[in-house]
């Protein structure tokens, strides 16, 4: 395909930016506990659900990270959300069913999902 206008270049840029978005910084982060305890409690499925939900909604500027055990094994799967400039919100006992709610309520609309909330840190 030949690029003949600024519009063409912009389109390629938009799709290419999505491809490389995992490498950019300063965006909303979702951090999932992937220690042995997390995985045993179903964190992998939660992670996959998060990825699926993000791509379903076309949310590109969200990074999905894993982290090790933080010592709250009884609350696993743990899922943290950090929106730029906001405190770190920790959810516990997250199930695959909770994921769409967390994404739509918290990530998109900025409302914390209270019934899964277990902590907040600045």
């Amino acid at each position: 395909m030949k690029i003949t206008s600024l519009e063409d270049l912009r389109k390629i840029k938009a799709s290419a930016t999505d491809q490389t978005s995992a490498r950019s910084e300063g965006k909303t982060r979702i951090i999932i506990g992937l220690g042995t305890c997390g995985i045993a409690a179903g964190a992998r499925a939660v992670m996959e659900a998060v990825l699926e939900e993000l791509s379903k909604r076309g949310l590109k500027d969200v990074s999905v990270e894993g982290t090790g055990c933080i010592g709250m094994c009884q609350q696993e799967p743990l899922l943290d959300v950090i929106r730029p400039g906001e405190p770190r919100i920790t959810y516990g006992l997250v199930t695959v069913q909770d994921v769409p709610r967390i994404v739509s309520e918290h990530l998109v609309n900025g409302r914390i999902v209270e019934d899964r909330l277990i902590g907040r840190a600045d």
Partner: protein
Amino acid sequence: MPTYRSHVLVCGGTGCVAGGSQIVQARMKEELVKKGLDKEVLVVQTGCHGMCELGPIVVVYPEGTFYTRVQPDDVKLIVEEHLYKGRVVEKLLYKPSEKMESVKHYNELPFYAKQHRIALRNCGYINPDNIEEYIARDGYQALAKVLKEMTPDDVINEMKTSGLRGRGGGGFPTGMKWEFCKKSVSDKKYTICNADEGDPGAFMDRSILEGDPHSVLEGMAIGAFAMGADEGYIYCRAEYPLAIKRLKTAIAQAEEYGLLGRNIMGTNFSFEIHIKEGAGAFVCGEETALMASIEGERGMPRPRPPFPANKGLWAKPSNINNVETWANVSPIIINGGAWYASMGTEKSKGTKVFALTGKVKNTGLVEVPMGITIREIIFDLGGGIINDKAFKAAQIGGPSGGCLTEAHLDTPVDYESLTAAGAIMGSGGLVIMDEETCMVDVAKFFLEFTQRESCGKCVPCREGTKQMLLTLERITRGEGTMEDLDKLEELAVMVKESSLCGLGQTAPNPVLTTLRYFRHEYEAHIREKTCPAKACAALIQYIVNPDLCRKCGLCAKNCPVTCISGDRQTPYVIDQSKCIKCGTCLEVCPFKAIRKE
């Protein structure tokens, strides 16, 4: 298209490839498939990160975790621990020193903290073989802006405002050079990229070509538009096969998108780029010799004037810039000349890439704002001298440059200050020397290089460098006289003033600066027949201390010329008449019974 939650960047620069990064990359892909993570995690090959010393480098995003010295056997650990379980693999992190904590994130490394990456903006961050990744980082936006919104004069004015000066060594203002070429009237003009990079130890240009080839192509296209050229050449030494391969891929991709070739972006501007492989002669980096070489002639310089802007390649107006100069063009167009001019010093704007080598802890590629001090480069970015030995000198500017001393550590790095101190900015070679380096030997090393690389066309350079080298060799053998020093100085000035091209005109610099700042070392070689740094083979001896010798015989066993004798009863002795001063015995002696003096 799947969304990858994580990108694993494996360095594919020459340094890391030599360290086995391609096996690491292949193994990474295998392990991800095994763990069923290949739909979530993307493996990307990038260009050089500048920390080749610690390679192979692997960076895991989105966390930005920086792994060093990654061996194929470590890959499984990264996949199982980091990518599967989210646990950082501590043992692969960089530790600045035993006592300090290991560094997790890219940005926390002292090596990167003081850098300001413009020419290297994409190196180590994008896949150089994928034009889309370049476009994602604002690639070809500058070309679009120029073609759709600017006139050639606008472009030249922007370049002039930026204050950018040629990064190939001469430091001539780029905007002015473009203007000369634009004003030259002709039916045909050329733009050329100088990628000869002949300075021993320099690899700035190679890393840009390998890590971000499109930045050079885009810069050249913008320059061609401004000057009215429709054809360009990249003159790259054949010893850079990876750079040439990536350039070829990049040119093909840009042509496919209509960003090079006929009617670029639907306008009536056309520009094509060819690659010319050079055989790697230092003199071919000189602009007129380079053009002769492209034409198929012997790579010998031509007298200037006429300057290339009037009569260059095939006698047509031509403009030649260095790789790094070209790589700076797009950011200047996008952000404006004033933005670029806001960095650096009064007369030296922007940033400069240096290849930091020698006796510093962190060797590698750094891009720093002009005006930074040499001390900051060596001790902050470079982490200081290896084994915390004493700093002795910094050789800046390669074979055309000079040696600076401790007294110059706080000299700001800009064109004027370096020239005033007797060195030059050059193309960015920066070799750090410690107390064990002999300055006469260093001068000899660089002169050996220039003498060998002299093309032989003019007498002062051909014969003058030869005589200077012979004199230096005499001195390092302990056979010099005090008159030799005067003769050396006289010859140096003569060669400098009467040579045809920059090679001869600058070749004496290493000799002149060492004579100026380290004259006492020359005198020690002559008067006392000693080498203070204990580096010159003819002036040192290896001696076994019989009191410390435990008669193990390791030295004799390892001596390549079997000049050490002794047995279980008698301490070992070195036969000085046969000794070749290789130093092996000193290295292998477990009891430190051998000394050098």
